[in-house]
């Protein structure tokens, strides 16, 4: 048994782990910005499911799946904007707002599916965005297969991840985001528009989470299925915290979940004598163990979760 378990850790396993991690990584990349700016968004699930749904709707309407991805981004950014309005302008509680968004997102998309497409035997199908091996890069031994034989949307995820890291740590813009999340009052005092920065982060986070959702519906599959985001939004948020608010760290966190799931599925298939319910929660147990064993608050933006009240300056 042990031998067959060890043999699971092969190239295919790593390939699957990366593949499953990518939607989570995308959503997490946006969430890093949002949390760095001081906003906690547990409504990523809503942004992902809207992305998944509007991706398919867009692809079905235009006949072009790439336009579908654009729809997904738009839907995601509008969700981000709405979320931003509630938590930034109204200063609503971020946890509750996120929960409400998730409930509405899952309910509303299922509802729209019924209203738009009616009751069908199979969901409406669109042309999928096929896997595309990158020339040359995919020839690299091992790494080529793992990273460069994926969906084109995965490459977007890589590029965004690198850009996000650079923007966050090497540009004024990144500095602004971090300043706003650490101490909005002093950020404002040096002329940074706190509200604007937070809104932009919310919109950005929504649009990339939307692409993350579109990967599920347009690349992994070619249709929308009710509730298909399957809790990946929560995993994305967990990845951000596991990765200590660093885009690359968050990506690593996403990989933990990808690998956890890939392992769990393989252990089930070879029939290890462990109840499948315990195997299915394996990724969560892994994440929890990492959280409590290596985590400390260091690295968290100081103003995370605290609404920002504009100073009343008297002219």
């Amino acid at each position: 048994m042990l031998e067959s378990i060890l043999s699971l850790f092969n190239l295919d396993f790593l390939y699957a782990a990366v593949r499953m991690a990518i939607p989570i990584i995308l959503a997490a990349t946006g969430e890093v910005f949002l949390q760095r700016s001081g906003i906690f968004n547990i409504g990523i699930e809503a942004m992902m499911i809207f992305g998944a749904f509007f991706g398919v709707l867009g692809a079905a309407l235009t006949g072009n799946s790439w336009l579908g991805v654009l729809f997904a981004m738009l839907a995601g950014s509008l969700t981000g904007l709405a979320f931003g309005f509630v938590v930034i302008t109204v200063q609503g509680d971020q946890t509750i707002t996120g929960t409400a968004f998730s409930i509405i997102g899952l309910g509303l998309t299922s509802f729209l599916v019924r209203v738009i497409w009616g009751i069908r035997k199979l969901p409406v199908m669109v042309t999928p965005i096929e896997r595309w091996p990158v020339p040359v890069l995919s020839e690299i031994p091992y790494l080529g297969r793992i990273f460069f034989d994926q969906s084109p949307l995965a490459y977007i995820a890589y590029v965004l991840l690198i850009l996000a890291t650079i923007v966050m740590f090497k540009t004024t813009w990144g500095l602004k985001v971090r300043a706003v999340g650490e101490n909005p009052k002093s950020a404002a005092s040096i002329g940074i528009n706190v509200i604007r920065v937070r809104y932009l982060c919310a919109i950005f986070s929504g649009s990339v989470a939307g692409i993350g959702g579109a990967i599920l519906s347009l690349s992994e599959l070619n249709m929308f299925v009710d509730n298909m985001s399957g809790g990946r939004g929560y995993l994305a948020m967990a990845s951000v915290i596991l990765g200590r608010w660093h885009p690359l760290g968050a990506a690593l966190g996403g990989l933990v979940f990808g690998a956890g799931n890939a392992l769990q599925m393989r252990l089930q298939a070879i029939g290890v004598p462990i109840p499948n319910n315990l195997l299915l929660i394996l990724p969560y147990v892994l994440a929890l163990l990492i959280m409590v064993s290596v985590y400390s608050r260091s690295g968290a933006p100081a103003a995370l979760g605290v609404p920002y009240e504009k100073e009343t300056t008297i002219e």
Partner: protein
Amino acid sequence: MPNEVQENEAGSRNIDLEHLDLLVRRYGRIISAVAPVTAVITALLLIGVLIFSLGKSPFEAYKALFVGAFGTLYDTATSLTRATPLILVGLGAAFAIRGSVFNIGGEGQIAIGGLAATLVGIYLPNLPGYIHLPLTLLAGFIGGGIWGAIPGYFYAKRGTNLIITTIMMNEIALGIVQMMVKGPIQEPPGNYPQSPQVLPTAVLPLIIPGTVLHAGFLLAILFAIILYVVLFHSPLGYEVRAVGENAIAARHAGINIFATRVLLMVIAGGLAGLAGASEILGSQLRLRPAFLPNYGYEALAVAMLGQTNPLGVFIAGILFGALKAGAGSMQRATNLPMNLITVVSGVIILFVVLAKIMTRLPRYLAKRSAGGGSGDFLSRLLASKSLKGTPHA
């Protein structure tokens, strides 16, 4: 000296501002009471428009909703039964929020509380009811309390993000319950994923015969009162609120923040566990997976709608319970997709959050009419407690 001038000016405005302060305080109270009601009404109006656009009558739909919730004694009792777990979990969540501890692990704590109660309810035979039943309820409280204490400990000790750990703990708890009802405690012959029924000595009695309302509701009333007294009229409540308002100041005042935070998670988790226990001992009588689906999350909304005031939570819990009881009858009467009903509860929660804009209204008014004036005074005024929607704070 510009200082003198300013003082003069401020002095002349002082009367104005004091008057405003009074107004703000008075309005703040009224508004924080009106805001949740407005939120619910706005949400229902909005959904009404959606229902209308689908070619159905919103009046019919809401009539069915109301009749389903309060049409008969039986329906009313059903609403209160649905409200019971929401109130219990909501009370714990609200109490913890007062201390700035966000427990979104209700879902898992309910599950573990239900599991613990079921174990004691099944496997402790030959006890008289007056011993067995309290023991079983206590097991539920302890089970949920432990499930809350684990993330609470790491949060209080090391600042480990509570939201993430509790979400993970939720998934793990649901997995454990599924595993238990398919394995160790499955009912013989053992194919359906459920435990045997709890022993009759552990069953919560019905309080209105011929309905489904069980004594768990009395527990909800009891804890609403206890928590109200503790929160506003006890040293512990004072400490909790102090930690919630300003943890650093509280530490300087000699309050043990670590202990307070862990305690809050134990209470929040324990009440969620008790909610799970009372549902099983009073209604369902056996453990099955997802026996209170989404109640943990909705209870958070109940806590917010109730302005984190135990009595407010009690009322908000009944409202949500009635919505749950009435939603089914609304769906059956109108054939609206069930997903829409889910959206309704989400929209209500969202509008409850949006209602905060109302509690901020006097602040805007104050700002506008005050125009200029001493910044210090104003910010002190604007930060006045009544604006946070916590009339008793």
